[in-house]
């Protein structure tokens, strides 16, 4: 069974060795299609490697907004043999494959970067189909399913481009092969060349030499297709319906970074780690900030010696009243656990943007997983308050970046903003973000009168025990408000105290902030529900980046007459028990969907609401869940499948 995409949409994939321009080609392709009026969702997959290993970029172009990928590929674009070997079997019947015609005789075993396991799998597929172990065998397999293959003699095409440019340095020129490949695919799809040239200008505009060679290569490949092939009959053609006005093409890490800038983050620390570093690098390249009042702001990005320094430096900066963040992934976050507790103990507002990747340990460092939920909400020794918020897509990543700072300052505690590799490195067409957001700084003050009733040692009471668990907070350097911080249990002034009564009062004060947060945080920020009314009996529950794929699968199922509701839990800690219980009141069947081994959200739902999870759909092979596989799994459950736990395994 597969997912038949009846939207006016196409799933397109380009692959190639890491370092050969797969990413930039995919970005040009995406931008071209967006300019033509299509919505885009792009997903990037790559090895933990600098050069040579197989990387690929899947792009879905659609007349409707899209936020997920499918298993099937309608058009496979390649300029090396490995891409064909690895992906040709995913090309749908009636699909298209573009390949380098000079590689047709390449033998599977001779491609050095195809690892042993993949080699065995592909070899068996060819053998079972009675085909040769050559690239041609792979193509024959696709042909037998009805695919059309287009062989391009890239070398001769590059030679021709070289002649046109009067540039004999072909080895250098060979770098344009990526642009030739996408240009050929755009030509086949019937997307206007002007859009391609405009997208190339957007990318290479500042580099005249690269610009001219890429444009020449694009022009050449575009007309090569038109003159050599008859593309009229290809099945995967689509037509745009509108112009995307006020839209951006943006990645998750860019969205989160821009949210931080708008949200007032003025210092970020980080230690390099995939997939979190992209955000810090983007912030650094936008370190000068324009302001509405005409003044100039700035954000300082500090690369530290390790993640312990990253979080402790961020806390030090936060004490001066600055909105401060650090960004990391699982291994780095593990190192931050102790300092997180210090921030909780001293009621310091701090944001940790946590980009999950597949663990444990080094795990699959460039691959996706949502395996750090339980670790994140439990990080640090002892009981202390923290807020954990998870975004479901790129747009949410932007708005939640701002909310994370508001929560941190309103409740004076560390906030962990959970994102993941799938959100971070995916790209999407998105409506330009709104700046109609409020900055909530809570009980933060820059000026303060002398406390008429100071604490026992005669000092300002930073941790004053009063009705509200939130005390007045001032930055270091404020007159009349000298205070102390310590990781030890402390008095209202921040001096060490081991007194049992004081201990209870201070623990109560800190932990009560969680109750306050649950009371004040908007329902939409606790959990969002879709396709849902009070009669909804069958409910899918999930969190984070599975959102897009679940929503599209549910849409399809609704069309087919099976309605399922969807609850996306956004606030993971403190757990919004009341909200979730309310949503589950009439639910008869609860299906938990998560990108981890142990259904971590499922265990929280059971723990807090007492409701058993009926079915679990999980995945942990490092490749994000596709709409296709969620659709198939849900369909199986609805049609009486007895398996209580379904493990998805899609992806290359």
């Amino acid at each position, binding site marked *: 069974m597969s997912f038949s995409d009846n939207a006016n949409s196409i799933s397109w994939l380009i692959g190639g060795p890491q370092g050969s321009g797969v990413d930039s080609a995919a970005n040009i392709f995406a931008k071209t299609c967006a300019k033509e009026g299509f919505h885009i969702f792009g997903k990037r997959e790559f090895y933990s490697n600098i050069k040579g290993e197989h990387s690929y970029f899947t792009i879905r172009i659609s007349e409707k907004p899209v936020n997920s990928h499918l298993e099937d590929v309608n058009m496979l674009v390649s300029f090396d043999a490995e891409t064909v070997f690895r992906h040709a079997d995913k090309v749908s019947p009636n699909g298209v494959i573009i390949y380098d015609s000079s590689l047709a005789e390449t033998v599977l075993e001779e491609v050095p970067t195809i690892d042993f396991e993949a080699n065995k799998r592909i070899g068996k597929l060819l053998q079972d189909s009675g085909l040769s172990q050559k690239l041609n065998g792979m193509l024959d397999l696709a042909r037998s399913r009805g695919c059309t293959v287009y062989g391009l003699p890239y070398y001769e095409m590059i030679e021709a481009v070289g002649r046109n440019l009067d540039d004999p340095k072909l080895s250098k020129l060979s770098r344009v092969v990526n642009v030739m490949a996408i240009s050929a695919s755009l030509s086949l799809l019937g997307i206007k060349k002007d859009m391609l040239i405009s997208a190339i200008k957007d990318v290479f505009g500042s580099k005249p030499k690269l610009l001219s060679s890429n444009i020449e290569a694009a022009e050449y490949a575009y007309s090569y297709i038109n003159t050599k092939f008859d593309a009229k009959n290809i099945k995967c053609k689509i037509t745009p319906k509108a112009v*995307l006005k006020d839209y951006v093409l943006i990645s998750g890490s860019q969205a989160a970074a821009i949210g931080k*800038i708008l949200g007032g983050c003025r210092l970020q620390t980080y230690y390099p780690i995939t997939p979190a570093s992209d955000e810090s690098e983007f912030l650094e390249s936008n370190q000068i900030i324009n302001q*509405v*009042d005409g003044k100039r702001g700035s*954000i*300082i990005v500090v690369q530290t010696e390790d993640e*312990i320094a990253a979080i402790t430096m961020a806390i030090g*900066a936060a004490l001066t009243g600055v909105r401060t963040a650090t960004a990391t992934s699982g291994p780095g976050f593990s190192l931050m656990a*102790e300092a997180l507790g210090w921030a909780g103990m001293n009621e310091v507002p701090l944001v940790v943007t946590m980009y999950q990747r597949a663990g444990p340990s080094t795990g699959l460092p460039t691959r996706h997983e949502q395996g750090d939920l339980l670790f994140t909400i439990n990080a640090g020794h002892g009981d202390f308050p923290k807020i954990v918020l998870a975004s479901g897509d790129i747009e949410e990543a932007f708005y939640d970046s701002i909310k994370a700072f508001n929560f941190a300052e309103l409740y004076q505690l560390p906030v962990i903003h959970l994102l993941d590799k799938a959100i971070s490195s995916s790209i999407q067409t998105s409506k330009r973000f709104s700046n109609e957001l409020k*900055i909530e700084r809570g009980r933060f003050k820059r000026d303060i009168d002398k406390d008429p009733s100071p604490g026992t040692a005669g000092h300002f009471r930073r941790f004053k025990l009063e009705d509200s668990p939130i005390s007045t907070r001032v930055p270091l350097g404020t007159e009349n408000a000298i205070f102390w911080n310590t990781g030890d249990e402390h008095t209202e002034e921040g001096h060490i105290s081991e007194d049992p009564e004081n201990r209870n009062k201070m623990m109560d004060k800190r932990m009560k902030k969680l109750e306050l947060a649950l009371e004040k945080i908007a329902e939409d920020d606790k959990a969002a529900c879709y396709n849902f009314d009070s009669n909804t009996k069958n409910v899918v529950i999930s969190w984070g980046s599975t959102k897009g794929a679940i929503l599209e699968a549910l849409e399809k199922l609704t069309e087919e007459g099976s309605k399922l509701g969807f609850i996306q839990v956004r606030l993971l800690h403190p757990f919004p028990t009341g909200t979730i219980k309310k949503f589950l009141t009439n639910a008869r069947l609860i299906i938990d969907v998560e990108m981890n081994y142990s259904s971590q959200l499922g265990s929280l739902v059971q723990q807090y609401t007492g409701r058993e999870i009926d079915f679990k759909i999980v995945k942990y092979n490092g490749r994000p869940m596709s709409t296709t596989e969620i659709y198939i799994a849900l369909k199986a459950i609805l049609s009486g499948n007895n398996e209580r736990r379904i493990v998805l395994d899609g992806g290359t």
Partner: protein
Amino acid sequence: MAELKLADYKTTVHNDWCPGCGDFGILNAIQMALSEMQIPRHKAVIFSGIGCSGKTPHFINVYGIHTLHGRVLPFAQGAKIANPDLEIIAVGGDGDGLGIGAGHFVGAGRKNVDIPYLIFNNEVYGLTKGQASPTLRLGEKTKSLVTPNTSNSVNPIALALVSGFTFIARSYSYDVKHLKDTIKRAITHKGLAFVDVLQPCPTYDDIHTREWFQGKNKPGSEKLIPRIYKIEESGYDGIIHDESEVNKKMSKILEFSSEWGDRIPIGIFYQNELVPSYHERIAENINDYFERPPSHQEISDAEKKPTARIDKILDKLQIND
């Protein structure tokens, strides 16, 4: 503004250090330095690590941030980068700074943030009952050790030098005047300043005691020859006036740093303000950093609306112009 007296820099918080602890001398010296420099109390922040030395800020009546074991430097650097107007002093123990925090010691050297850092160097982990610290030499056995020390010691002066500290000094906790003057010089230094403070632990270190530092007997005489000597008194000048002096001075500093036993040098070994501070490096990219550091920026207006504009960033990602 009224003159601040030494007493103004003291708190009434109960001090639980052991009687005779060298830490008292360091505490007094810091308070004296702050008072003599008339640093406004609310402008100063003492950051500390964990251990006996970690309690220091609670006894000084300025802002005090008692951080985590080994992490005092990154905490302090974060605050100073965010607000360079603050007068930040970092203090910690030898286990704190050269054991668990050694990575940050090296990392801080590379950055050269404008803060003084004092290590209370007593060769033991006092608060956990006297285990060997990173400055206890191989084979030495203090009374609290079961067997002689099986790890070798780190040379703090040499480590500071190769890590890039731009001010390196040593002082002695029982010579409060020398220590106070050294701290003042460290505070005024532009860049990261390290002061290695020899601080006998009267409870656990029975080898390098106050008496030991006071000297050894001259053969056939009652007179003690002090082990500690001041390098300035022999005419040594640690200030780098020209980059060409660096190499020569470095070998001299390494020579000083390995002197121990009968002759132990104290004083300012090295001061190099020709190396740009981290703040100056930031200002290379953000020209108005000193006028508008992160802590001075208004991020929202009276209606709580963000002051930042993101339109230019979004324009670059826009699909159609």
